[in-house]
Structures are given as C-alpha cells and as structure tokens.
C-alpha cells in the first residue's frame, strides 16, 4: 500500500476511545492471534482461556500470585513510562532490575545482622533504587553528554549487567559450600511476610505508592512538567530554560530506580537470597505494560494487573494442558507490544471511520 492511497486523515479520536477502546482493541487482536496459535497446536482456545482465567482469579491464593506478578510488572511498566514521557526509550529495564536487586541484596547481606527490620528494609529499598538508578545513569550520561543513542546503550548494558551478575554470583557472593550460585539466606529481619498464602508481599504497597508518586511527580510538580516538555518538544523546553541534560539524567535515574524495585519484590519478598535471573523477562515486559497503559500510572497499574493475571493463569493453564507451555505468556507480551506499539496506527483508522459514521 503506497502512502498516496491512504484515506485522508479522519478526525482525531475522542479521549475515551484513545485511552480505553484502542488498548482493548489492541489486546483483542493479540488474543485473536494467540487463539489461532493455540488452535494450530491442537488445543481448544476457549478451553485454554477458561483455564487461564480460573488459574488467575479462581482462588484467593491464585489472586495473591496474580497480584505478586502484577507488582513486578507495575515497577518495570512505570520505569518504561517515565522514560517515555521524557522522549527516551529505556530498553534497559532488565539490567536495571538486575542491578537494583544486587544493591538490595548487598544491603541486606551487609546489615541484616545489625539493623532491626524497620530500618533494614527501608535501607534495602533505598539501595535497590540507588543501584538501579546508577545502572541507568551511565547510558543517560552517554546520551546527554556524548550523544550516543540510549536504545543501543541500554541494550548493551543489559548484557553487561548479566555478565557482571554471573561473575559476582559464581565467584564472590556464592554461599560457602553451595553448589548453585546463590548467596546465603537473608536474616529474618529482611524477609517481607507473605500474604494470602502466596508469593504476594508488602512490596505491592510500594508499587501502589510508586504509581501515585509517579502521577504526582509527572503532572503536579514543575520537574515533572519539565520532564514531559523535553519529551514533547526538546527545542521548546530548552528555549523555556529547561536543562535538557539534567532532565535526561533525572528521567533515566527515576526509571532505573523504579525498575530496581523488582529486586525488592523478588528478593525481600520471595527468594530471601540473592540469585541469578530473578528479574528474567520483567524488564522487557515493562515495555508492553507501558504501551498498554498508555504511559499513565493508572493505565500501567491496570495493565500490570492484566499481565500479572496472564502470568499466573498461564502457569496454571500449562499444568492442565501440557501442550501449551507458560512461554505462551511471552508470546502474548510480544504481540501486545507489536499491536499497541509498532502497529498502533493499524486499528486507529478503522476506529475513526467507525466513530465518524455515527451522527
């Protein structure tokens, strides 16, 4: 289809269609494609869907697991969204979550014999934020001062983070006598209590606080305003006196800190030790969450719930249907990114035409 044959641009979509209907259409498209894949495998898609829903919300325990997964997705989704608002595409959530977890774990390993829980846990959370932010600060600095593209540098830093963690876990932090690369178990002061008989823990409160905090910061502070301005129109922002470099650093450090909180949920909440690959996949899934949630904290929270339900429901479903592995969830994430990110212009004209037909 050549550009000249496109229909003339219709009226822009009303807000409700843009933020509610369009994401739903996108996810519906993704689900249709997944349904086709499931059918090709030879499983009844409706049976798979029913098992998925039951697995996600069928019992208090499964709801607990859904919320636990959603906590991770909320952190990485917010991380991607904050960077998006500043016009930066942070693909490095994976590495920032990994290194954030490292900071969290190191703080606990250093202080869990000394500090009481009410002091230790805030210190560990702060360390997660600090390490995550530091890991994002390097690509941010390279973009702001040296002009290297943040997409490439954050990708590269994911691999550097992975190599660094393997080295540290295998050679330095491994518990004496342990065969697998894991640290010693955290002291009881650093273990967040589990809720609802599942992996859900108090980190979800932190996630909710982050959603509210990001909303207040982006739309009700002058720094947040400056951050959104550099995303919309860097030239205008600089003209208005915004320091582009400083705002790039701020946006990426905030983004990295939010991603780093995955370490809090995973290590303090569930694993109670430092180990390899605890963050696997959440950083990339954050892109899907942010795109789905239209980069708004409320949208991110809802999208995180959806993805959490998919993660939990997908795991349960793969127990009942061995032909479908839980990686089907990864397929859904990829399709959501494709449809709501790269192909976001695909259903828009249909929707515009549909709405224009009404009086």
């Amino acid at each position: 289809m050549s550009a000249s044959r496109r229909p003339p641009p219709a009226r822009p979509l009303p807000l409700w269609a843009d933020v509610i209907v369009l994401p739903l259409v996108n996810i519906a498209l993704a689900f249709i494609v997944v349904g086709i894949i499931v059918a090709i495998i030879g499983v009844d898609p409706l049976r798979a869907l029913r098992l998925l829903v039951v697995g996600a919300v069928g019992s208090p325990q499964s709801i607990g697991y859904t919320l636990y997964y959603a906590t991770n997705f909320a952190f990485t989704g917010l991380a991607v969204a904050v960077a998006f608002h500043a016009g930066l595409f942070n693909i490095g959530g994976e590495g920032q979550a990994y290194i954030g977890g490292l900071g969290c774990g190191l703080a606990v390993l250093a202080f869990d014999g000394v500090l009481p829980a009410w002091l230790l846990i805030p210190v560990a959370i702060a360390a997660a934020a600090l390490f995550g932010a530091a890991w994002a600060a390097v690509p941010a600095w390279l973009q702001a001062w040296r002009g290297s593209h943040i997409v490439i540098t954050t990708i590269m830093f994911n691999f550097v983070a992975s190599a660094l963690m393997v080295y540290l876990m295998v050679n330095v932090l491994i518990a004496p006598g342990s065969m697998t690369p894991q640290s010693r178990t955290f002291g009881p002061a650093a273990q967040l209590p589990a809720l609802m008989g599942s992996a859900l823990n108090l980190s979800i409160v932190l996630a909710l606080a982050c959603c509210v905090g990001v909303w207040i910061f982006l739309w009700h502070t002058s720094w947040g305003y400056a951050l959104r301005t550099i995303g919309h129109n860097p030239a205008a922002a600089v003209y208005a006196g915004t320091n582009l470099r400083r705002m790039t650093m701020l946006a990426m450090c905030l983004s990295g800190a939010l991603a780093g909180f995955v370490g809090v949920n995973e290590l303090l909440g569930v694993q109670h030790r430092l180990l390899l690959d605890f963050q696997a996949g959440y950083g990339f899934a954050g892109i899907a969450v942010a795109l789905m949630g239209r980069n708004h904290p409320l949208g991110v929270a809802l999208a995180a719930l959806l993805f959490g339900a998919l993660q939990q429901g997908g795991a349960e479903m793969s127990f009942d249907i061995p032909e479908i592995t839980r990686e089907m969830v990864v397929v859904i994430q990829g399709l959501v990114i494709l449809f709501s990110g790269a192909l976001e212009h695909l259903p828009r004209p249909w929707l515009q035409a549909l709405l224009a037909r009404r009086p």
Partner: protein
Amino acid sequence: MDDAASLVFLMFAATLRVATPLVFCAMGGLFSEKSGIIDVGLEGKMLVAAFFAAATASTTGSPWAGVAAGVAAAEVLALLHGFACITHRGNQVVSGVALNILAAGLTVVLGNAWFAQGGQTPPLLASERLMPLFFPRAGDNILLYVGLLSVPLTWWLIARTRFGLRLRAVGEMPLAVDAAGISVTWLRYRAVLLCGLLAGLAGSYLSIAQGAGFSRDMTAGQGFIALAAIIFGKWRPFPAFGACLMFGLLDAVAIRLQGLKVPGIGEVPVQLIQALPYLLTMFLLAGFIGRAVAPKAVGVPYEKER
C-alpha cells in the same frame, strides 16, 4: 602439523565458526540500516530461523529444506517489521523489540507442542545437518563459506550498483529519492527482505550447521553483538566484518581461557571477555574511539507529502 601450528589453525577455525552468524547478521543489518530502518530484531529473526531450520531438518531429513524453512521464517518476521515500520510508519525500535519477544516465546511454545522436549528439537543426525567440507576438525560447512562470501557481495551491492546507490540515498535523504520518482517503500522493503534472508541463514547455521538441533534462546544475544559490529564497523561492510572477527576471536579466547591462570594477571574472568563487545561498542558510541555516524534518516518513518 606441530602443536603450535595446529593450535593457531584451530583458534582461527574457532574464530570463523563463532563469527559466521555474526557476519550474516551484520551484513543483513547493514542493508536494513543503510535504508533507514533500525533493526534491533536481528536476534528474533535468527532465533525463529534456527528453530524452523532444525524442526524442518529433523522432520524431513533434509538440511536444505531446513535452510529454506529457516530463511522463510526469518522473512516472515522481516515482512512484519516492514509492514509495521514502512507501511504503517510505526516505531522501529518497538517493532524490533516486539519481534524479539515474540520469537523467544513462540519458538519454545511451538517446540514444546511439536516435539515435547521442553522447547528443544530432537538432536539432528549427521545426514540432517550441513557437515564440514574439507577440514572435519574445523567445522567448515558450506554456510561458513557463504558467510565469508556475503561480505564482498554486500559491499559490491551497496557500493557499486544502482540499487546500492539508491539504498544509501534512501537512508540519508528519502525525500530526494522520492522526488527522483523512485519508491521509498519498495526500496526499504527490499532492504528489509535482504536482511531477513541473511538473518535466516545465520539462524539456520546455528542450529543445523554449527549445532545439531535447536535449544531455547540459543542465539544468546548474538543478534545484538552483530548490531554492535555494525556500529563498530561504522556502517561499512568490511570494517563490520572485521568487528565480527574480533568479537568471534574474543569468544574463542574466552572458551580457551575458562579456568586458566594467565601468568602475571591471574585468572581472567570469562564474563569480562564476554561483556567486552558491548563495553567496546559503548566506548565507541561515546566517541572515545573515533566517531560512529549512523545513516541520517535511520529510524525516521518516511511520510510522503501530499
């Protein structure tokens, strides 16, 4: 052959073996990037190609059917990328990331459904693989030679043909190409398809020539190392080839050095050598070693004026 010569030969062969998928991917990525389309989806294309090549070779018993299937699978992703980025002017990085994630999930899901071995394909027999041609110990299968040939071919296509001239123009200033009456869309689609072809060969090489079957996530970041090689070669075929060889050598050395103590330094962490391609590329991008300048219009969707 005495020991030293034999070691040098084996290191050289190991370097080439490891570098071949990087070379294919880097040349493919070059076509795409020269035309103005960023391709962070090389990894995903390579992964689906590796899976479908191994799955087809194991089902039909023919390695050539495997290569054909691998290339076809990579082309499907390439067309999707083109459809999103060229036809619908979507974000090229987002599309690439989506395809990578899709490939990572889909290969495991389909592999598990079809072969029920935890996402792997059954190990391939010698008759189902592309075997070494001249030196059994070196692993010099036919795709390795094709990979070497792809470099001068890419250079010739880009630097010496009318298609190459237009390709470079469309990556620098699509408006001028459009004004000359040449279709930007068709040029870019051809570039993306060439990229799919080469990434498909890279994936097929991994699973049915170098390896003997598909295992989950077997590309392990090589698509991104190829991307790094393109940047390192400053978007030129021969320097990019050199970067691939350097990264291949690093990998071959890392395997050799595992657990070895180097006199005077002690044990070199293998992970450091594995991270070196990424670190070096970041240094380069930061302008500490020369300057890498991308094609001007890369990443910008072309909107025809009306």
